[in-house]
């Protein structure tokens, strides 16, 4: 057991060190979503969607979705290193070491999730500029959700990257599969304004609950008001299930392929 955690901690530490030593990665995951948020948000000005309060502007509306985008970019891109590690030969030496596969999964996912969490946290520092005043309670909820999404999305990246041999292939999957998940998460438009078929897709999208949860934490007058769909409890529960699901699947996938 001690060895499992020692190995996981070591793999986790490696992820963090590698990330910090590549400034392009630190900036690459953070700046594009911020620019996207800033330009689109400023361009549209007043929000066409009145979800919480009539004076809400679109920058405010986009804020939770942008956080999700930062997490998505950081966590998913951190798992590309699995493909590179396999090519470089680094992964071979980890696979034939006496550690259980679960410590590879644990170290790698927690490593990526840590990076995603802190990148998103950096962006969250802009919240006061948007007149988002977080109570301790709502900050706690936001951070909890952030942790769950970071682990869940890194897990998803792990499942894809572990089975792939080329980074180009990974990028295609990212565009084909992961970006639509973000588009449909309620990051750009709310559930209520979508047509019925789109709404169905959005309800099935696990990221919808992450964005909705963050939105509630940031803007709702009352965290547990009964009127909102999805409710905060449902958001937390869904995000937790998503996180558990991708983690378990990562373990299974990792055991299958060398």
């Amino acid at each position, binding site marked *: 057991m*001690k*060895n499992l955690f*020692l*190995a996981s*901690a*070591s*793999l986790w*530490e*490696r992820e963090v*060190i*590698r990330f910090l*030593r*590549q400034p392009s990665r630190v900036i690459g995951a953070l700046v594009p979503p911020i620019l996207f948020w800033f330009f689109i948000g400023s361009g549209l000005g007043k929000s066409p969607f009145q979800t919480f309060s009539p004076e809400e502007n679109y920058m405010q509306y986009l804020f939770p979705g942008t956080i999700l985008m930062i997490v998505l970019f950081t966590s998913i891109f951190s798992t590309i290193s699995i493909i590179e590690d396999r090519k*470089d*030969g*680094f992964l*071979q*030496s*980890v*696979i*034939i*070491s*006496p*550690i259980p596969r679960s410590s590879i999964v644990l170290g790698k996912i927690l490593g990526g999730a840590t990076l995603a969490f802190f990148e998103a946290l950096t962006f969250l520092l802009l919240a006061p500029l948007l007149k988002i005043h977080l109570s301790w309670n709502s900050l706690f909820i936001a951070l909890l959700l952030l942790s769950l999404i970071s682990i869940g999305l890194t897990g998803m990246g792990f499942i894809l990257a572990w089975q792939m041999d080329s980074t180009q292939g990974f990028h295609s999957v990212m565009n084909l599969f992961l970006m639509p998940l973000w588009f449909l998460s309620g990051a750009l438009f709310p559930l209520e304004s979508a047509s019925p078929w789109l709404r169905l897709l959005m309800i099935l999208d696990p990221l919808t609950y992450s964005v909705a949860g963050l939105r509630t934490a940031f803007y709702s007058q009352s965290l547990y008001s009964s009127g909102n769909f999805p409710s905060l409890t449902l958001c937390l529960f869904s995000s937790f299930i998503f996180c558990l699901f991708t983690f378990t699947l990562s373990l299974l996938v990792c055991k299958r392929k*060398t």
Partner: protein
Amino acid sequence: MIRIQSLSYQYPHASSNKKMALENVSFNVEKNTIFGLLGPNGGGKTTLFKILTTFFLPTSGSVEIFGLDIFKKMSEVRKKIGVIFQNPSLDKKLSVKENLTHQGHLYGLSGLELKERILLLLLQGGLLERANERIETLSGGMQRRVDILKGMIHNPSLLLMDEPTFGLDPAARIALWEILKKLKQNGTTIVCTTHLMEEAEKCDCLAILNEGKLVALNSPSNLKKEIGGDVIAIETNNATSLKEELKKKFNLQTMLLDEQTLHIEKEKGVELITELIQTFGEKIISISLSKPSLEDVFIHKTGHKFHTNSR
């Protein structure tokens, strides 16, 4: 130290009529030796290496290392073997010391014990002054040295190496063999794959693999003795007709290596070579006489040349 019995391997996605990557290979590796797995590309040596390192499960057969079945006691075996792959398995963004520390953690080492072990290895490998430099700033030879230290972090008594001198310049190759000899002196058994004859010569014992089969097993000198006498190689424009003429006139057994090359194994080759030149002088482009080399051993055992891709 290692017992390999009736080992076979077929790649999972290979069609059923495709040859096996390894076919019924059996041999033992004695303690405290440098054991070479020699073979041309595609001969099966890397497949065997991957099975020994527990990376692949064999289709059939068994392997014991330190008396442990490596597939039933995989975790225990993994703790005791050091593995060095063809391409350095280092993280280029980390320093020498960080790479070694990380590897130590994978093998359950930590704290003072690990620090002391790393210090000792860095001293032995002559890398103490480069300890804090990132791998990407080191030369290929130095990276290889770090890779070996990495494989030695848990002080294994068996070191498995795939093409240990891959990508190294001649000076770095010589230095690497010096390291291997030192390791052997300190009691480590080394098994390495190679497709280079000059490297194979340096091994205490060789297993020659061709098309997945074990074709020879002995020390390099004994293998060469098996041929006996000298080796004559003739280059000619039409090797097939010359082969027939040699058979008629001298009752000579020759081997046709390709359309232009004949291979003859014969005692007192000097006498024969003079006669050959006198009789077939015009047909011969070049003729050479030599003591048997490992290449000749390979030809003797398989009937064809040892094809190697240049590095």
